[in-house]
């Protein structure tokens, strides 16, 4: 009873807050940039940072442990931030997200963008965990060896699929070695195949400082892949091979070529990054030391920020509301973007005969689509302006552009989906009634559906009678915020479609893992997320084909598969995006997946000046260039800086 009351209170609070946040209409509340000249905005922004002393130490935190620093084999996203600051790639984004030289001084590609050549800086040395230069120089061979390392199955590279399929010959090299290891191939020796790497795989050191990648397909997005994938980073091969399994298990067993090196590492407790004295771009390092400590609890990190013990704190929706009216209200800043999308996964091949009949019906899926009030769902995460995290598409807006600067989500028919308001309970009911006409007899019996017991163990087990209402088993974790979201789903769906037609059951399963719930299809509906990893829709969409790894619910969509095939074989990038947009629209408009909000979570407080770091859209935060103030940034300062930045970025992008 208390839980239901709490849920209702949170829901009521979220809805009322959302309702109160109409766009400001009075002149005094308008965007500061709207009424000012660009020069005024730039001057105002300049005044905020002009003449100020900036801190040289930045204190921040991480919430879950750093399992290992091995940037090739570690699945955990947390390691990415450390690596992003310690190992440089060939290129990096500047503060506007435009790619600029990093370890590569220059680059070029052939006309169809299947061959990319990078000229590496000369005379750069790898450093160790004390910052001392080692005997090893950063050369083109280190990038070749990076691919050599991940191409060997024994090294267990993580998330290899995209790179393996893209770099010419890597797929065959990897699987030949694997077949030898498994005994499938017996007439070839492992060492012979390893020795043939340079001939077999499309990456080579043209000379000491020139590396060339030959790709299977045209990849206009290749630079964004370099930003996002740790597999494209260099390695000193002899050093890594000599260490074997010990490579990068801690800070002392790896080498660094980035802006920082890990000078201290206490597992599950603290990490210290120190500025690399031999860095190629050391003039642009503005923080000497970055101190991380592990703080798993959000309340603790918030309290420590208030006491000045750390320089950054994430603020979730509940905490945001509790800070309203306090001295910290003026320091709450909105998080900028998330390319990760939350969506509902539907089980097309599960054991629940009632749901199974209905989910394979297009009208029923549309009934589900139109029954969700996405704004209410969004207000659980973003109580102030829930509309900014609504998302109807799988790939995020602002993540992918064609060569003319057109956003991928503005390609038709994806654009129409992006702009559709799916909160239409009347339409949802109509679709449900149409589905019932097709699937049930006049007595409410589901045609061809037998009564029985559904075995979703270890999650749950329940009886179905083969009649309306359709029993739906929603499986989530026992996390309080997830339970609230599940209750919202239930309320919306049952209210829109009608409780006489739908019996939405929630299973809050404490042992929720992908292996216990999703993979064995022990659910009817659950929610998950997908992220646009680089500037091409293929990153997600090729995984969602009928036999794709991301097709957890086991749908069968030959029309979608055909469009993906066409996209992959398209002659131009624009044509490719068009086919991908049609494919994505097909999945979304037919309700095979139901995206509803982005994964963006609320607000933050910080001492750092926004937009002074590289704009890493696909990679992780880089601290090179970040300015740290001695006082927390205020909302007014943020808005001024934001307005100036938007003008500057637009200019930078148009000049690209």
């Amino acid at each position, binding site marked *: 009873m208390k839980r239901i009351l709490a849920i209702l209170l949170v829901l009521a609070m979220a809805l009322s807050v959302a309702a109160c946040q109409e766009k400001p209409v009075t002149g005094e509340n308008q965007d500061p940039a709207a009424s000012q000249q660009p020069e005024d905005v730039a001057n105002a922004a300049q005044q905020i940072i002009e003449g100020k002393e900036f801190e040289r130490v930045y204190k921040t935190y991480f919430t879950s442990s750093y399992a290992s620093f091995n940037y090739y084999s570690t*699945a*955990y996203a947390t390691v990415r931030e450390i690596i992003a600051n310690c190992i440089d790639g060939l290129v990096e984004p500047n503060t506007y997200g435009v790619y600029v030289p990093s370890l590569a001084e220059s680059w070029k590609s052939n006309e169809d963008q299947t061959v990319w050549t990078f000229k590496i800086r000369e005379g750069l040395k790898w450093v160790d965990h004390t910052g001392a230069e080692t005997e090893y120089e950063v050369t083109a061979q280190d990038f070749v060896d990076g691919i050599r390392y991940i191409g060997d199955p024994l090294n267990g590279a993580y998330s290899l699929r995209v790179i393996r399929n893209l770099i010419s010959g890597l797929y065959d090299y990897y699987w030949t070695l694997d077949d030898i290891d498994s005994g499938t191939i017996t007439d070839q020796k492992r060492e012979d195949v390893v020795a043939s790497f340079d001939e077999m795989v499309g990456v080579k050191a043209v000379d000491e400082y020139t590396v060339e990648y030959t790709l299977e397909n045209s990849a206009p997005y290749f630079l964004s892949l370099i930003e996002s994938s740790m597999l494209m980073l260099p390695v000193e091969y002899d050093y890594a091979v000599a260490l074997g399994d010990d490579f990068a*298990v801690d800070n002392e067993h790896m080498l660094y070529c980035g802006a920082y090196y890990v000078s201290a590492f206490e597992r599950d407790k603290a990490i210290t990054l120190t500025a690399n004295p031999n860095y190629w771009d050391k003039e642009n390092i503005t923080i000497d030391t970055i101190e991380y400590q592990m703080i798993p609890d959000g309340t603790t990190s918030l309290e420590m920020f208030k006491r000045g013990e750390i320089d950054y704190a994430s603020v979730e929706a509940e905490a945001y509301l509790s800070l309203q009216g306090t001295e910290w209200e003026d320091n709450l800043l909105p998080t900028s973007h998330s390319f990760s999308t939350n969506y509902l996964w539907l089980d097309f091949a599960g054991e629940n005969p009632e749901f199974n009949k209905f989910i394979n019906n297009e009208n029923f899926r549309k009934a589900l689509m139109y029954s969700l009030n996405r704004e209410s769902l969004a207000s659980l995460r973003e109580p102030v302006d829930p509309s900014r995290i609504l998302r109807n598409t799988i790939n995020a807006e602002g993540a992918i552009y064609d060569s003319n600067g057109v956003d991928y989500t503005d390609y038709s028919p994806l654009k129409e989906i992006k702009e559709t308001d799916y909160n239409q309970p009347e339409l949802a009911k109509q679709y449900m009634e149409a589905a019932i006409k097709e699937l049930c007899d006049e007595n409410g019996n589901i045609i061809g559906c037998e009564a029985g017991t559904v075995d979703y163990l270890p999650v749950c087990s329940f009886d179905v009678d083969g009649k309306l209402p359709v029993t739906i088993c929603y499986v989530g974790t026992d996390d309080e915020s997830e339970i609230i979201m599940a209750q919202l789903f239930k309320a919306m769906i049952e209210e829109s479609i009608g409780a006489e037609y739908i019996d939405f059951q929630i299973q809050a399963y404490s042992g929720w893992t992908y292996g216990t719930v999703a993979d*064995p299809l022990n659910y009817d509906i659950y929610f998950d997320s997908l992220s646009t990893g680089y500037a091409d829709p293929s990153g997600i969409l090729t995984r969602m084909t009928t036999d794709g790894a991301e097709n957890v619910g086991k749908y069968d969509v030959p029309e979608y598969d055909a469009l993906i095939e066409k996209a992959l074989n398209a002659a131009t990038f624009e044509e490719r995006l068009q086919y991908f947009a049609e494919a994505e629209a097909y999945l979304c408009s037919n309700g095979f997946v139901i995206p509803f909000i982005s994964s963006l979570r609320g607000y933050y407080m910080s001492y750092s000046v926004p937009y002074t770091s590289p704009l890493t859209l696909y990679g992780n935060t880089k601290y090179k260039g970040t300015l740290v103030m001695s006082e927390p940034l205020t909302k007014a300062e943020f808005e001024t800086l934001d307005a100036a930045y938007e003008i500057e970025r637009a200019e930078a992008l148009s000049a690209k």
Partner: protein
Amino acid sequence: MGKYILKRTLNSLITVVIVFVSVFMLLRLMPLSGYFPQEMLKETDEATRMSYLRNQGLLDHPVVQLGRFVANLFQGDLGRSLTVYPKVPISTLLAEKIPITAAFGFSSMLLGIVLGLSLGLLMVRFKDRWGDRLGTGYILIVRAIPNLIYLFFIQVWVSLWLDLPMVFDKDIPSSWILPVICLALGSIAWYALWLRRFMVDEENRDYVKFALVKGLPKKQVWKRHVFKNAIIPLVIYLPSDLLFIISGSLVIESLYSIPGTGGLLTTAIKSQDNNLVQVIVLMYAILSVIGVFLGDLLVAAVDPRIKLTEEA
């Protein structure tokens, strides 16, 4: 006595082997998908996953895997973590984490014993008066209120009032104070509760009444008889605290960001880190049997009525 120790050691050894082999084999019944975190499952295809498992030796017959583990164990190699801390040697992990948890465990155990027994004595001394009520109130609060509430209160507010760090930092001695107190809160209540109960029981026994009637001073009866007899049932549990000392507290280590062993076994089981689970289970099983064994020896040492030999 020597024969008894030998027999108990042999029994303990058999117990450890049974526990270890059972857990080892049960772990091999877990689904193969459990070896991969969610993001990895979604990112990799079936063939790549099988390749990874084969290269890790996880597709070998369980008996072969057991043989390999035992052979490595005898060479002092505990193996490497599979999923929680990929490729990190388990001996390194335990060497990093156990000393920290043990230091907190010992400190809190000592604090728990000293304050718990003192509170218990206070409650008996002032039975049904202010001291007893104070102690009962404390015990009630600690045992009845969900610990997260008061632990969180202590971390946020007490740290503010006393100007103490909110999280542990090995270089700041004062950062030990709150976690040690939090860890000891439960055992203080436990020792106080049971000492009071056992002492009240002893006080009502005939031999105590007889001693008092004979004119022995109350203080002497208390010290030599009541307290000594009441403490015996508590002593038996002391060695079994060994396991608590090593295994740590998930909640408190998480709250104060202590990089110890708290929650390590749970995390390893959830992540299906077979190598880590089997080493921790082996370690805990050995500590448990040692703890029980030592408890028996200790109680025999402090209570002359108890003999562990055959003739007893």
